[in-house]
């Protein structure tokens, strides 16, 4: 490993464990603790990836989880960030987004074509001619995106987990550790999470040679480790902040859904780059990245370096480089007055020439752009612009930039914290944070080490106090004081461009200039047009410089700008972690197993599983359904209707309550009878229907639609409270199983299982009775949804299978058939019974659905009455009618939602349609214009590809319009 340094005092690698791995088909070695980036760099590899758009070579940039130009894939995973991916034995990775490999990427021709690919070029280039767009779209799909998914990868389980704590501290630098210790010492449960594999934050690389700082850190860590109520978790990212301090924690195996009582963000800052020509090439990196390489991984970042600085960190970095045996060719300081501290003298004493009021205007590339050969230094004016005139070229293979910082404040912004630009420290700082959220350390604009410790301690105490703990001591929050660590404009223009503001998206300074010139002078528009900040690092190294450039171009001031909205997650998160173990509850009736045994094909009805039909060997789906229909019409069928909502309403106000809730009349409904119920909302729109059975003077049993039970129950509870009515409401949907025994033989079969008198005189149509079926207490409703003599039988859920089995056994000699939802839909359509949600929509009121008969406008009050009174006076706009095609019709059958067309305009749509074997023709329901609703009117229905068919408006019900099937005489005749 040609660029490995001697052991460093606080390095993270274990030199006793050498590890072999493969990159781009070649073998390399590193040490345990190395990441792919650091191991490759130690082996002299400089090109780690290719940029998104121009496929320019890229190397190490930040080494802080944000090097998104160095992304890798294995057979199992893609878009792995090389700067944080640990090397393990057997690891085999290659770079994403290349054609032919990272070294000789054929797509690098895009860099040569870059003059033809300016900002927003796709909006302009692919707009016309439109016929070429499919071609462009295919090419873009091939080129776009990062990484590829292997559909054959083995499944890994990444179940999520809940966790809880009193105080969550994000970040383990001096401020974070201090805050965690302070909060834990007050007795609370504290969790500290650190994104990196080791604790310490910036002390791990910025103060590596500062023994005092390390002594402080060691002491703090010792205190932290001694506290049993303080848990320290490394390699864990606090990725997203949600309401009530719900925070998503991401580690290598899962997402943890943490509920904290308070949050301290001590996440530090991201170092910011300078902008100059070729600032993206391998060898150009942030000074902190170079320091991490040296101190954490024992890797030499370069041999000869030019340091570009605008703060004391750059000077400290220069001294670190000297100590590591790197030749520091020069230090260019953007500031006119240079560095005020003693560090300047130390750097000078180390033999490093310092150039004040100087910037790097260009990095000179090696052939092929795989590294750099030097830096061009230029004078810079007080306002930050380059002075024309002399420039100085210095040979080097590295440029280290330390020109500023931006806070890692993603969580604070997600929590709707307000941050404002502080000119004293030249960074955004928190001005107003939500209750229970605190910031400390550099994210709070505090840089001095002692001040960070105090700031952290104060935040920890504040968080503890917020949680109600008794706190014995507190500390004042230190002030935010200069000098500013960030230069106000570290951007150098260059006539030849390639001075990148956003490395993720390959956005140059001129792209922003052009976009503003084109009129995108609003930050939100500029973002969407240029895509700055939209790459995998979400603009952490780009946004601030783009804002600076934008302000300069538009004459605005940075402190007057609103930042774009921050949303979870702060860093990329594997989709597998979000998927986790999916909980997708579904419901089954107690008869589910019986349907399976009978060969049911199941369908989803909301979150219920229902039998669509029962498969029969040798029969198609349509044939099986038709046979079920025939069985019900001529013999006997049994359907599971256990999914219906079932509500028990009792109490002295029960009848009055039902009267108010539904559109019909119920106050005088006799016990022992049922009535159809229609429910509207306050605007008169139909929302549910069912049947109300009066069991006693103050007892009702009401059914709802399958999908409506919870919503109807909720609405009823609300109205009961509003009206202060004395009722007891029980949602008994799951308590009862229910089945509908229907057909001419139904009474005969049921009589064999009960002692109840089922004669028409004693149990008329629309009656309800309570008794026993097969020894089980049951409620029986004589309803006619499918148009045959039948009984809806409701029994306690745990006895439903018993009753079903007895009914099937007793009905066997009559040819009983279980029938499913599809057969039921045909049967009810033959009776023109409306299905709410299919034959009605979000605007349908009863008058246009032909349900005036169910609405008693002369009642004192019901929900929706007032709106219906207004609607009744208005001219209707549509009407639901029955239609039929001739028996001889042999063409395509219309489908639901096919349009009714009149004179080339849409006049309505089909809501239900089927071929009725009972009637021998296609029948259906459709909305049409009111003037088309006259019987005998011909309507035209468009059935795909412009083909029109003609149907006639007919009277409904289509089948048994006199309802004779419910009369005893007809039923007995059929049964015999």
């Amino acid at each position: 490993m040609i660029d490995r340094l001697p052991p460093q005092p606080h390095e993270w690698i274990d030199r006793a464990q050498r590890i072999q791995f493969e990159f781009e088909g070649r073998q390399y070695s590193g040490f345990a603790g190395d990441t792919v980036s650091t191991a490759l760099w130690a082996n002299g590899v400089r090109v780690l990836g290719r940029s998104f758009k121009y496929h320019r070579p890229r190397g190490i940039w930040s080494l802080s989880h944000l090097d998104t130009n160095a992304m890798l894939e294995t057979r199992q995973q893609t878009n792995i960030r090389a700067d944080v991916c640990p090397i393990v034995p057997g690891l085999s990775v290659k770079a994403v987004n290349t054609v032919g490999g990272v070294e000789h990427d054929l797509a690098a021709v895009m860099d040569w074509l870059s003059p033809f690919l300016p900002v927003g070029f796709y909006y302009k280039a692919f707009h016309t001619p439109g016929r070429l767009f499919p071609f462009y779209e295919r090419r873009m799909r091939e080129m776009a995106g990062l990484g590829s998914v292997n559909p054959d990868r083995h499944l890994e389980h990444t179940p999520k987990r809940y966790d809880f704590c009193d105080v969550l501290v994000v970040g383990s630098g001096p401020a974070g550790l201090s805050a965690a210790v302070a909060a834990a010492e007050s007795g609370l449960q504290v969790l500290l999470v650190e994104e990196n594999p080791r604790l310490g934050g910036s002390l791990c690389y910025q103060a590596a040679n500062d023994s005092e700082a390390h002594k402080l850190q060691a002491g703090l860590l010792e205190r932290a480790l001694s506290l049993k109520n303080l848990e320290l978790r490394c390699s864990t990212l606090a990725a997203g902040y949600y309401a009530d301090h719900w925070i998503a924690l991401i580690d290598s195996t899962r997402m943890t859904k943490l509920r904290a009582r308070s949050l301290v963000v001590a996440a530090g800052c991201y170092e910011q780059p300078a902008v100059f020509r070729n600032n993206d090439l391998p060898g150009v990196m942030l000074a902190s990245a170079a320091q991490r390489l040296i101190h954490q991984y024992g890797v030499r970042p370069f041999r000869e370096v030019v340091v570009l600085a605008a703060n004391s960190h750059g000077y400290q970095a220069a001294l670190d480089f000297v100590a590591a045996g790197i030749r520091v060719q020069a230090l260019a300081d953007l500031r006119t007055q240079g560095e005020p501290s003693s560090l300047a003298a130390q750097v000078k004493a180390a033999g490093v020439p310092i150039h004040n009021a100087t910037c790097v205007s260009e990095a000179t590339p090696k052939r092929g752009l795989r590294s750099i050969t030097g830096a061009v230094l230029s004078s810079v004016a007080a306002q930050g612009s380059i002075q024309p005139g002399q420039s100085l070229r210095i040979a080097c293979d590295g440029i280290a930039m330390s020109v500023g910082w931006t806070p890692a404040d993603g969580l604070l912004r997600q929590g709707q914290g307000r941050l404002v630009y502080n000119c004293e420290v030249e960074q955004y700082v928190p001005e107003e944070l939500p209750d229970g959220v605190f910031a400390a350390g550099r994210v709070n604009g505090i840089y001095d080490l002692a001040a960070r410790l105090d700031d952290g301690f104060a935040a920890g105490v504040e968080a503890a106090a917020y949680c109600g703990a008794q706190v014995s001591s507190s500390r004042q929050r230190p002030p935010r004081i200069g000098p500013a660590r960030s230069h106000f404009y570290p951007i150098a223009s260059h006539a030849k461009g390639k001075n990148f503001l956003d490395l993720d998206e390959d956005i140059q300074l001129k792209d922003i200039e052009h976009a503003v010139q084109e009129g995108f002078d609003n930050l939100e528009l500029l973002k969407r047009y240029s895509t700055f900040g939209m790459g995998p690092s979400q603009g952490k190294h780009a946004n601030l410089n783009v804002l600076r450039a934008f302000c300069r171009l538009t004459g605005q001031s940075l402190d007057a700008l609103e930042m774009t909205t921050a949303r979870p997650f702060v860093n990329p998160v594997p989709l597998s972690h979000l998927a986790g173990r999916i909980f997708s509850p579904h419901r089954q009736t107690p008869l589910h197993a019986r349907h399976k045994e009978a060969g049911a094909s199941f369908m989803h009805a909301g979150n219920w599983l229902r039998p669509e039909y029962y498969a029969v060997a040798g029969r198609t789906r349509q044939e099986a359904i038709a046979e079920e229909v025939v069985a019900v019409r001529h013999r006997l069928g049994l359907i599971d209707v256990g999914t219906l909502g079932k509500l028990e309403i009792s109490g002295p106000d029960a009848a009055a309550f039902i009267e108010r809730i539904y559109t019909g009349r119920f106050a005088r409904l006799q016990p022992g009878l049922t009535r159809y119920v229609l429910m509207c909302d306050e605007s008169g729109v139909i929302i549910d229907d069912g049947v109300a059975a009066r069991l006693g003077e103050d007892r009702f049993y009401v059914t709802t639609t399958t999908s409506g039970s919870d919503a109807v129950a909720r609405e009823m509870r609300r109205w009961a409270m509003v009206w202060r009515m004395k009722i007891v409401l029980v949602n008994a949907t799951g308590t009862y199983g229910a089945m509908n025994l229907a057909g001419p033989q139904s009474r005969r079969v049921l009589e064999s299982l009960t002692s109840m008198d089922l004669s028409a005189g004693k149990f008329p149509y629309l009656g309800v009775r309570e008794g026993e079926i097969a020894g089980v207490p049951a409620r029986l409703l004589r309803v006619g949804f499918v148009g045959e003599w039948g009984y809806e039988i409701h029994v306690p859920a745990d006895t439903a299978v018993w009753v079903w089995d007895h009914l099937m056994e007793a009905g066997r000699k009559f040819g009983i058939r279980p029938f499913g939802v599809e057969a039921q839909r045909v049967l009810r359509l033959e009776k023109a019974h409306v299905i709410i949600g299919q034959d009605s929509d979000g605007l349908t009121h009863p008058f246009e659905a032909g349900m005036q008969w169910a609405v008693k406008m002369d009642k004192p009050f019901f929900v929706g009455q007032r709106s219906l009174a207004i609607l009744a006076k208005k001219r209707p706009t549509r009407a639901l009618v029955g239609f039929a095609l001739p028996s001889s019709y042999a063409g395509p059958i219309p489908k639901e939602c096919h349009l009714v067309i009149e004179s080339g305009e849409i006049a309505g749509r089909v809501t239900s349609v089927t071929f009725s074997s009972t009637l021998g023709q296609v029948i259906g329901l459709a909305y049409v214009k009111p003037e088309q609703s006259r019987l005998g009117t011909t309507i035209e229905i468009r059935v795909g590809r412009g083909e029109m068919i003609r149907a006639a408006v007919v009277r409904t019900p289509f089948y048994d319009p006199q309802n004779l099937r419910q009369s005893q005489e007809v039923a007995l005749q059929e049964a015999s």
Partner: protein
Amino acid sequence: MISSNPLRRSPLHEALQELNPVWGKVHEMQVPLRFGGAAKESQLKAELSLCDVSCFPKIGVKGPEALAWLVQTGTSVPDSVYGVQPLGEGGLAIRTDRQEVFLEDALGGQRVSQLESALQAHPPGVCLVRRRDASLALMGAGSNRVLRETCGVDFSRPVTGVVMTRVAGVSCMVLPPQSAGAPAFRFWLDPSYAPYLWEALLEIVRHHGGDAAGLEAIDPSVGKL
């Protein structure tokens, strides 16, 4: 041939059948007594197991006079909503609302059927609420690991009474062990969700080294009934 005695069926019957238990009959319901040997069941009970306890009879009593009526019958009613009191014979009385109490018998208990009979007289202001909830018991030292993957409530801190929450996406009433060393978390839920929840929880229980256990793990005397 269909027996002449009506037999109740757990909503989990089919799921349990697939695990080949030794069956028994409790409160007119077919129940798995055990799935493996006694030693294995005992180990599962101590470490981590899931058990269907839907067989215990249950009712609700609701209405403006419900609490007073229950007290009149000699039933202890919890003072606060979500509070729990013993019902006698090992059963439970849980106050689920200001004017509603959920009652469940334990093995062999008769209290619920007595109260249900008394309610047939329709005392004023008191309603019988038929309850056919599915019910599960999550037992063993590893229970919290399962709950941490399925439920957003912190059960590591003491909780008195029941908690209304979601477990694996299903609304449940959860009763944590009410004293140190008490055996199990109890869940009650709408029976239509039970097959889904059983499958979801059992997968997680097995992932953590546990398995299904029979009713003998709750009460060894059940096999002798």
